[in-house]
C-alpha cells in the first residue's frame, strides 16, 4: 500500500504486472518482463539532442517578416506545445512512478519524461530567439482561454489517477471522505480504470494533439520559412513517435490480458470511454485549427484541411490499438507532411554535425547488420 523507495521484499520482478504490483526495488536491466521498454530506452538515448545545436538566427528574420495572422498561428502553436510538454515533462513521473512494478518500465517512464523536458527547453530556445520579450508569450499560456480549455483535457485523467493513488498510498483501499470532494471509492478496479484511461489520454496527447502544430511548422518550412524551428520540430516528432509506441504497447499489453488479466476486463469495459477520448480530442483539435486560422489561413493549409488531417491521424492511431477508426477521412490530405516527419532526413547544420552524425551512424550500423542496405530513401 504505502510507497517504498526500496522495497525490501524478495520477489521475482518477472512475475509482476506493469502497474500495481510490488514497488520496484533493484534497478536491473539484464532481464525484462517486457523487453520493449528496454529497447525504447536505448532508442530514446540514441536520439538525444540539444535544442541549442539548432541555429535560429534566420528564424528571427523570418518571424519579423510573417504577416500578423501568421505570427498568431506560429506563436499559438508554440504556446500549445509548451503546455503539452509542461504536462508531459512531469506527469508520467508523478502519476506512474508510484505505481509501476517493473524496473525496465520504471526507467522508460523516467527516460520518456526526461526527453519531454528537452522539448520544453527547445520552446524556450525558440521563443527567446524570435521575440524580444519571452515573458509575454509564456504568461499567456495560463490565461489564454483556448489554451486553458486544452489544459483541462490533457491534465484531467492524470490528476484523477494521482488523486486516487495518493489516497491508496496513504489510506489504502476503501471509501475515503475527502474534504470538498466527498466520498472517493478506492478499489483496485477504480485505480486500474483510472490508469487505463490515463494511458489512453496520454496516447491521444502525444499521437494526435501535437500533429496540428507539426503540420503548421512544416507548412512554414515548405515555404523556406522558420526552418530552424522545423528542424527542432522534426527532432521532437521523432521522440514523440517513440513515446506513442510506449503508450500503444502499454494499452495493447493491458488489453491482451498478458500482463494482468484483470486489466483486460477493464480495457473491455472502458472501450467506449477510450473511443470517446479519441473522438473528443479530434473535435478539440479541429476547433483549435479554427482558432489558429481565425484571422486568415496560410499557404497550403487551412482549417478544413487541418481538420481532415486530424480525423485521418486519429483513425491511424485508433487502428494501432485495435479500435475501429471513427472518421470518414481515409486518406492523408497533406501527404507532404510525412517527408518532414521522417527522421531519416533530419538535416543538421555544420556546428551540430559531430554529435548528430555519431548518433545517426549508430543507427545505420544496426540496419547494415540486418542486411537492410536498400533501405536508403
Amino acid at each position, binding site marked *: 500500500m504505502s510507497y517504498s523507495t526500496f522495497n525490501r521484499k524478495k520477489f521475482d520482478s518477472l512475475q509482476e504486472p506493469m502497474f500495481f504490483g510490488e514497488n520496484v526495488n533493484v534497478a536491473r536491466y539484464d532481464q525484462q518482463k517486457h523487453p520493449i521498454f528496454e529497447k525504447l530506452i536505448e*532508442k530514446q538515448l540514441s536520439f538525444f539532442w540539444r535544442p541549442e545545436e539548432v541555429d535560429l538566427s534566420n528564424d528571427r528574420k523570418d518571424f519579423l517578416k510573417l504577416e500578423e495572422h501568421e505570427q498568431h498561428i506560429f506563436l499559438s502553436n508554440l504556446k500549445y506545445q509548451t503546455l503539452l510538454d509542461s504536462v508531459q515533462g512531469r506527469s508520467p513521473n508523478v502519476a506512474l512512478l508510484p505505481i509501476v512494478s517493473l524496473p525496465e518500465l520504471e526507467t522508460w517512464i523516467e527516460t520518456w519524461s526526461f526527453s519531454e523536458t528537452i522539448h520544453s527547453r527547445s520552446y524556450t530556445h525558440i521563443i527567446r530567439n524570435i521575440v524580444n520579450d519571452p515573458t509575454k508569450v509564456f504568461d499567456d499560456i495560463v490565461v489564454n482561454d483556448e489554451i486553458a480549455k486544452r489544459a483541462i483535457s490533457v491534465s484531467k485523467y492524470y490528476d484523477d489517477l494521482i488523486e486516487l493513488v495518493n489516497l491508496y498510498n496513504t489510506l489504502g483501499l476503501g471509501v475515503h471522505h475527502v474534504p470538498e470532494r466527498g466520498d472517493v471509492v478506492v478499489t483496485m478496479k477504480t485505480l486500474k480504470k483510472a490508469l487505463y484511461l490515463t494511458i489512453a489520454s496520454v496516447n491521444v496527447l502525444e499521437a494526435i494533439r501535437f500533429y496540428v502544430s507539426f503540420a503548421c511548422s512544416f507548412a512554414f518550412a515548405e515555404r523556406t520559412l522558420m526552418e530552424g524551428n522545423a528542424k527542432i520540430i522534426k527532432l521532437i516528432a521523432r521522440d514523440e513517435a517513440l513515446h506513442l509506441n510506449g503508450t500503444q504497447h502499454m494499452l*495493447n499489453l493491458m488489453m491482451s490480458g498478458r500482463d494482468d488479466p484483470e486489466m483486460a476486463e477493464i480495457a473491455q469495459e472502458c472501450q467506449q470511454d477510450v473511443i470517446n477520448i479519441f473522438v473528443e480530442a479530434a473535435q478539440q483539435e479541429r476547433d483549435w485549427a479554427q482558432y489558429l486560422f481565425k484571422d486568415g489561413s496560410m499557404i497550403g493549409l487551412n482549417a478544413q484541411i487541418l481538420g481532415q488531417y486530424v480525423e485521418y491521424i486519429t*483513425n491511424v492511431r485508433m487502428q494501432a490499438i485495435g479500435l475501429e477508426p471513427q472518421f470518414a477521412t481515409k486518406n492523408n490530405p497533406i501527404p507532404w507532411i510525412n517527408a518532414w516527419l521522417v527522421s531519416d532526413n533530419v538535416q543538421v547544420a555544420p556546428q551540430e554535425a559531430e554529435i548528430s552524425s555519431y548518433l545517426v551512424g549508430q543507427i545505420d550500423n544496426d*540496419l547494415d547488420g540486418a542486411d537492410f542496405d536498400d533501405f536508403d530513401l
Partner: protein
Amino acid sequence: MTTLISNTEHQDRDVHRVLLGKKQILVTEDEPLLPQLERAGIQVEYQCREGYCSSCMIKLLWGKVSYPIEPLAWVNSGYMLTCCAIVKSDIEIAML
C-alpha cells in the same frame, strides 16, 4: 504469420503479387513493401520508416510477410508494417 529469415537466404529474386482492392502490384523480396508501393504510385502513411511509430500499419488480409529485424511497434495479427516487412508470398492488403 511472421518468421525470421537468415541473411544467407535473403538474396532470392522471388516476385510476389500484392493485391490491393482492384489493383495488383508486383513486388520483390529485396526491400520492404513500402518503397515498392510508393514506386507504384500508391500513397501509404509513414513516419519513421524504421518500425517504431506504427504509422505505416495496414491490414494484411492473407499471405506471408517477414521482418528481418523485429520491429519495435506493436503489430496486431491481421496487420503488417509496410516500412519493414518483406513480402514472402502473394498477399492481399487493405488500407484504413
